[in-house]
């Protein structure tokens, strides 16, 4: 048994009838790590999370948590706790009773479970809302109650299903920091499902990019962004141009590209189709004569020296060292 990992998936497969939702994936999440499962909808990331939680059966393969095979154990016996996408707070119970629900099921005495629930409400800074019912809270507040309710189970692994997708952008950024802080302080593993690459980049220690029921790439956000292994990963994480170059497919970061007068340097020729001012940078979108869409992200002062407008013809080029080959 190898207990260096909190969660280990060994060739895990999920089949719904004839559809293969998750195709023999293997993954190791180190202890107290923050792991993000990232991918477009239908890529199998939520099915994977639900299999780890025990809400979906594993068709084939094994699941180990803290070195223990839990493939056939019920959800509560796995040492996991889940935070649901819609929070799934019990609408008929106060926040305090929602948080105290787990201990109540384990027949912890009323006074004791309320004391512990208060502790966890304080942990997520919702102590003042103990007596409120969930429908009296905003989305962000409900989320913190859901978090407290999961954490009171003292899970080894916390599973989060699209935890930030229902929040407004401002709150999302704050919640990101907060989740990360809790994970560091509690020293438990978080597995976080998301379709937003910026979220995964900002939070993950281990980023797992999935597509079509398979894992495309696993690594730190830095590794994945610096060296996407495939055209899909490069496009999905964004910030890259994927272009055919000298009979090969390459990826190059849009912020390392430059725009030169047409034909001045080797590169991809195209016409400016879109200019987006983003504050410190300007994103210039190009369309080539083959219909390929590429972009260059220029510093605003660089752009100002040679402004471009829609319809201008330019060549997109990049330093040789920035480009790297893609598998397909």
């Amino acid at each position, binding site marked *: 048994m190898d207990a260096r990992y909190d969660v280990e998936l060994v060739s895990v497969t999920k089949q719904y009838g004839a559809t293969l939702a998750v195709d023999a994936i293997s993954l190791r999440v180190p202890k107290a790590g923050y792991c993000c499962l990232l991918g477009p909808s239908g890529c199998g990331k939520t099915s994977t999370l639900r299999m780890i*939680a025990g809400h979906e059966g594993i068709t084939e393969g094994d699941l180990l948590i803290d070195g223990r095979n839990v493939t056939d154990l019920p959800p509560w016996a796995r040492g996991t706790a889940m935070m649901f*996408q819609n929070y799934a707070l019990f*609408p008929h119970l106060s926040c305090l009773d929602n948080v105290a*629900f787990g201990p*109540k*099921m384990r027949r912890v005495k009323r006074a004791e479970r309320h004391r512990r629930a208060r502790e966890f409400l304080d942990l997520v800074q919702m102590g003042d809302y103990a007596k409120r*019912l969930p429908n*009296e809270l*905003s989305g962000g507040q409900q989320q913190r109650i859901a978090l407290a309710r*999961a954490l009171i189970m003292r899970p080894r692994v916390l599973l989060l299903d699209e935890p930030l997708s229902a929040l407004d952008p401002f709150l999302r950024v704050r919640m990101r920091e907060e989740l990360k802080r809790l994970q560091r302080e509690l020293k438990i593993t978080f597995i976080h499902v998301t379709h937003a690459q910026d979220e995964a980049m900002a939070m993950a220690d281990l980023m797992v990019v999935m597509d079509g029921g398979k894992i495309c790439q696993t690594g730190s956000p830095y590794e994945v962004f610096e060296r996407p292994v495939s055209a899909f990963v490069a496009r999905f994480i964004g910030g890259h141009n994927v272009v055919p170059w000298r009979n090969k497919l390459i990826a190059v970061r849009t912020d390392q590209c430059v725009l030169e007068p047409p034909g001045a340097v080797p590169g991809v020729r195209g016409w400016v189709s879109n200019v987006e001012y983003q504050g410190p940078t300007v994103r210039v979108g190009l369309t080539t004569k083959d219909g390929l869409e590429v972009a260059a992200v220029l510093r605003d002062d660089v752009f100002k020296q040679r402004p471009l407008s829609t319809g201008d013809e330019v060549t997109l080029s990049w330093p040789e060292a920035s480009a790297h080959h893609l598998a397909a």
Partner: protein
Amino acid sequence: MVDRHPRQNPIDARPWTFYALGMLFALYMLFLYGPMLVIYTLSFQGPNGGVTFPIVDPSLDWFRDVWRKGQMADIPAAFSRSMALASVVSFLTVLISVAGGLAFRRPFRGGGVVFYIAISSLVMPSLLVGFGIGLGFQFLGLQPSLFTSALGAQLTWTLPFGLVTMFAVVNRFDRSWEEAASDLGATPFQRLRYVTVPILLPGILGVALSAFTLSYDEYARTTLTIGARNTLPLEIYALISSQTTPMLFALGTLTTAVSFLLIGTTLLFLVQTQQRRQWHRGPDVEPVGAWTRDTTSNL
């Protein structure tokens, strides 16, 4: 001179159809409640008054008459039989339709057929259902009675209603509540006890109430399956066809009061549950200060 009233834009004026339909509605209300109001009023008729206006020496005599065991009818006994039967019907309807509603959340082979079979008795002629059950009992040599044939006959009426209501209620039930309960260590029984039933409770009460009232005034199915001892509607029908005194009006007033009491109590319970849910309503703001304190201090 300044116009005191803001001028009405003709776009905001109500069309004539509003008044026409309003009139129609008023007539309908009169048609619906007028006869009942007459009956409630006439139930306070004096001992020497008749079944029509005018009221001679208003009194409560006819209400007292209801409780007297008469030659023709024993109202108190029939009433208690009706209450007992309605309670049992209501309980069984809730039990079966809640279980059925939960079962039908997941599609299963033959589910559609089972559903239509369960619902079809809604459209079967009620007298024939009662007749069939009565005949079946006779054929098998069984005595029809309150808690056998009559109970069964009434369930053919209340169950489809209960089931259809529960389908609607369960439809809004979010499966992730149950998953969350399991995740937090609830056994299947605890999940039902602490999560599923409490969340479905308003719907369950609705089913119980409608089953109770459907049973309480059921006539057509019960009449051929009841056996020797009548329920209240059958007793009232027997009275109407034999003797007509203001006692019938008093009885009508009393049974209406019972129904209203029942509905009122249930509504009160539901309203209180709703109010409890808004008990602590305060300012709906994010505790921004508390939340950002330690994150902003890092900046």
